[in-house]
């Protein structure tokens, strides 16, 4: 008697939960749906009626996407735009920045995790200090620093300040302290150099940590806005985020490409997310479980 009551109770709970989370997911999905629909409509339509969920099959076509990929507009004219270039720039930046950041930060994190040396506590406190200060506060002098080093308008200017990335260093250091130091000692007995040990013995062990951080660093790099906007000058070098932002004008004359372009820019990161979800979530939550 009692167990059947319990079963009924849990069935009701099940139904309530499913309805609740379905509704929530639906609400969350609406902005995506709105921009997806808009990407098939002409830009003028958007100016006149705004972004909404109206389905109007007569208006909808692939014309915006055709323009995005070929430069041929609705009227058949060819008008050049830089979207594909921005896309390429973003891919190049994200891949390079992620690879180099992981490498450099792992290198530094290893130093903090495996050695005892004078000044270590002080330097590690410095890592924590960098973690605490929002970059935005320092953007003026960082800009003039980058400028005096001749780093403006190049992807090196975007990357260089962040290759030894405090968050990533901190995370790798935490990860590496859990690796037994015997491995290092064994490497030394076998005659490997200090750096050889890192490259040949430690790096292969860091694979899970690399995957988690690759996602996080990659996502930040792909979406980064303020610093690249300050560093980059010429439209040819813009990343996707910056390029798209320049299209968002009050006149809305670029909406054909802005909306289809925004929509399309979600796709690579979405595919990456769906295929490597576990690492995404690991990377994001790792910091919260007591660092």
């Amino acid at each position, binding site marked *: 008697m009692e167990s059947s009551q319990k079963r009924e109770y849990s069935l009701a709970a099940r139904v309530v939960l499913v309805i609740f989370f379905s509704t929530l997911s639906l609400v*969350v999905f609406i902005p995506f749906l709105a921009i997806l629909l808009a990407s098939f409509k002409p830009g003028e339509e958007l100016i006149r009626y705004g*972004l909404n969920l109206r389905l109007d099959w007569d208006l909808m076509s692939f014309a915006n996407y055709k323009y995005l990929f070929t430069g041929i507009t609705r009227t058949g004219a060819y008008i050049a735009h830089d979207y594909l270039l921005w896309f390429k720039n973003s891919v190049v930046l994200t891949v390079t920045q992620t690879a180099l950041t992981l490498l450099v930060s792992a290198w530094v994190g290893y130093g903090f995790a495996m050695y005892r040396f004078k000044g270590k506590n002080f330097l590690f406190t410095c890592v924590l200090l960098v973690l605490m200060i929002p970059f935005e506060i320092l953007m003026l002098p960082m800009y003039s620093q980058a400028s005096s080093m001749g780093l403006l308008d190049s992807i090196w200017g975007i990357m260089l300040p962040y290759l030894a990335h405090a968050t990533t260093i901190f995370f790798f250091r935490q990860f590496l302290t859990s690796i037994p130091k015997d491995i290092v000692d064994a490497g030394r007995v076998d005659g490997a150099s200090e750096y050889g040990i890192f490259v040949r013995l430690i790096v292969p062990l860091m694979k899970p940590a690399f995957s988690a951080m690759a996602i996080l660093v990659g996502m930040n790099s792909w979406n980064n806005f303020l610093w690249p906007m300050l560093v980059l000058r010429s439209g040819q070098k813009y990343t996707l985020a910056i390029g798209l932002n320049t299209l968002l004008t009050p006149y809305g004359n670029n909406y054909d490409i802005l909306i289809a372009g925004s929509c399309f820019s979600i796709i690579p990161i*979405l595919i990456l997310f769906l295929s490597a979800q576990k690492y995404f979530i690991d990377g994001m939550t790792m910091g919260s479980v007591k660092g």
Partner: protein
Amino acid sequence: MRKFVAFLYDQRVAPYVFVLPFVLTFIIFFIYPVLTTIQMSFQDILPGMVTNVGFKNYERLLGDRIFRIAVKNSFLYTFWTLALLIPFPLAFACMMNSRSMVGRGFFKTALFVPVVTSVVVAGTIFRLMFGEVDGSLMNTVRTFLGLSPIKWLRVRETGFAAMVLMACWRWTGVNMLYFLSGLKGIPPEMYESAEIDGANAWQRFRHISVPLVKPTIIYVLTISIYAGLAMFTESYMLWAGNNSPKNIGLTIVGYLYRQGWEQNRMGYASAVGLVLLVVAMAINLVQLRVMGVLGKERD
């Protein structure tokens, strides 16, 4: 040369070679900028002419009405993101953690997806959703409810609400995941025995879940305060630039940007930055105290 290589390979020297990239970055892109900011905040900087003005920038800051608006906006935004992005995601996480939950993986993914869109794209979407034309999504909702369309982003309350709503859209799923991973550490037996003792759902939430995810709550609290106070891009995208009507979306960083870049007052902008720096440091120190991390990092 060979001697130098041997020196580099010395076991006592190697750790310094390992941490060298950080040390260089720290000096060039952190210490130097911090010192420059401090110095510039006491200066009046015009092209080719730098004058020391003592505390004048700070004095001006005290009487600056626009700066006060920016500070108020940043704190208000932080307050609202905390008020909405901690209790709700925590409640969702608890619901999701319940034994009766079906399709956990699917809903987790669905709620997480918004954060993979960049602020630029999210801002574009929200700007247009809250458009002032009658047919924009939010105005359609108003019409549906029998209300007249409004100019969302031109009114203080509704413009601000759009900004907070966008933050909620992007971060609810992430915060929920943080809490879920915190809740995973709680053994289900604890809930069961509480249930046997007659504790209802609210009591179980209040007396088991909340205390045990406290470290996670503090973590989320810290990163939210940090992100809230440093917020800039959200506002920049929503109003298609740094100038919102009557400064309803102006943040501290936005004001720094306006003074430093748009109006070229580097000295004054540095003073703005330093105020934010002090606030950020103070909050972090309090947080480290609370977590008991400070002074624990000895090896």
